[in-house]
């Protein structure tokens, strides 16, 4: 039974990719992934490249179809949703901010396009031009951008950090309940990275947003998350509070992973 606390539940989610046409080969993307995301919590998924982190994220966003398993939002199966209704509750921020924007349009366009999603729902809400601009400006301010510096510019005129914040602002216009951040900081400079992470933390505190934070950087995962999932080869190998997973790991793989991360104040004994 689903409790009130859980907003998203994933049950036995499995994805096999098939390679080739005649002599097909099965590749495991994710296998029997089960977890739940509580309201107002940041849950991070950690794993090396190829461990199936992004596969899980794309399935939750409804971008790829799972081979088997269930995704429940508020107790209702993803398959039962109208996709547009579902995307009003679940939004994503992706790895590469440069490739998300169309270079021929100003960055206003994806922000304004967001309103089509809001307007196309059953309520038949309509936004006037002024209303749209007001909402856009407000959401830009929440992520720490001065709207006049950004609006009307083209993607190549902005830095990666600004574009990534724009994408977070875009998803906030929709007021989702769940935000999926798939390696949002991997293309961003070290000094601006922390600012983005702090932005996400503030959103969690101010709006009670639930977040699934996917990363390969265990330091970031520890800084941000309440609970952590460790994945290896498509399977969940450990799940628990961030503190326990990183500092008293139970699973052999997690121990190995944590040991091979270089520390700033410790030197390896090699």
């Amino acid at each position: 039974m689903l409790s009130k606390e859980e907003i998203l539940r994933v049950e036995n989610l499995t994805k096999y990719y098939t390679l080739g046409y005649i002599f097909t080969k099965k590749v495991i993307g994710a296998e029997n992934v089960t977890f739940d995301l509580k309201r107002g919590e940041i849950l991070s998924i950690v794993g090396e490249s190829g461990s199936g982190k992004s596969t899980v994220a794309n399935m939750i966003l409804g971008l790829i179809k799972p081979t088997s398993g269930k995704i429940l939002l508020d107790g209702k199966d993803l398959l039962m949703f109208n996709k547009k209704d579902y995307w009003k509750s679940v939004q994503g921020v992706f790895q590469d901010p440069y490739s998300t924007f169309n270079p021929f349009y100003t960055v206003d366009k994806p922000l304004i396009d967001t309103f089509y999603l809001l307007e196309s729902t059953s309520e038949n809400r309509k936004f006037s031009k002024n209303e749209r601009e007001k909402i856009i400006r407000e959401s830009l301010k929440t992520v720490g951008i001065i709207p006049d510096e950004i609006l009307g510019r083209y993607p190549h005129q902005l830095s990666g950090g600004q574009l990534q914040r724009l994408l977070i602002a875009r998803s906030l216009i929709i007021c989702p309940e769940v935000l999926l951040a798939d390696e949002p900081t991997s293309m961003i400079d070290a000094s601006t990275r922390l600012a983005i992470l702090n932005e996400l933390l503030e959103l969690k505190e101010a709006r009670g947003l639930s977040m699934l934070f996917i990363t390969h950087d265990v330091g970031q995962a520890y800084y941000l998350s309440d609970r952590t999932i460790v994945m290896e080869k498509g399977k969940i190998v450990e799940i628990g509070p961030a503190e326990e997973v990183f500092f008293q790991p139970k699973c052999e793989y997690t121990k190995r992973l944590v040991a091979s991360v270089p520390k700033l104040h410790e030197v390896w004994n090699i």
Partner: protein
Amino acid sequence: MNSVVLRVQDLKGYYKGTFGVIYAVDGVSLTIEKGDILGLAGESGCGKSSFLKLITGTPGSLLNYEGGTIEVEGYNIYKITAKKLRKEVKCKVISYVPQSALNALNPTIQLKSFVADMLRERTGHKYSGNEARELLTNHFKMLNLDKHVLDLYPHQLSGGMKQRAIVAISTYSNPSLLLIDEPTSSLDVTSQKRMVEMLLFLYKSGTIKSMIISAHDVSMLRQICNRIAIMYAGKIVELGKTDDIINNPFHPYTKLLMVSLLPLEKWIKKEKLNSVEGKPPDLRSPPSGCRFHPRCTECMDICASQLPPLIEKEGRFVSCWLCSQEDHYVK
């Protein structure tokens, strides 16, 4: 006294093209002694890679050498002829492993043929692929690499394996200085550790006497280097012993960088860490005075107008007006 392997003085290198002039490396001086492992840390676009490329003598298209001297073991890199540089200096005195090492290999030939090409260029004798393999077998064995790797094509190797094979090939002629650009940035943590172990082994076994490693991950440099230089916007802002720089940074930028690394240690979650606003400067028109002053929290009047000199303080070099004494104000 240790002998000096590399002496760089006031090195300048700019990118020139239709986009204008980018002041990528703008007045860098440093000295590497025998036995030094120097880590070059900084954000992307701060000039680490450009600096390493300039030391090799062939910086590549668009990047132009604009002044300063580089002396490596008595060779003045930009004064000697191109042929001498290629035949005597490269691979034997300096070896350079580029950042895109994963694409450095020729995809159409086996590794051993690639090695044979390299040996022919450096020694003047012709080698067949199999002879080259025989020559490198011991070196590969020492580095825990299987000699069959040499019979493979690049696409058959994993990323970490390719990177280690390249380091093995470039250290074959025992260079006195190894320049290695972002050795671990495209590897996952397990291969990263293996790479670090390999570099340390090369150093301890005496194959390489000194190294410059560039990386943005200071925690990784911490495991290898005995000195660290922090670069910001084409200049060195702080240079000193690894422990000093990490535990007690002087320059405001170094302090910021150490926090924003987010290493897996318990202190990072105790309180919310402060990030600094703004973004790295556009090096086409770098800010006047200290290049960090628009983002600096401890900015003073003098910072915007005058460039702080690189002065020695408590055994390290730092370029900040906060650390400069009164008598240094007059340059």
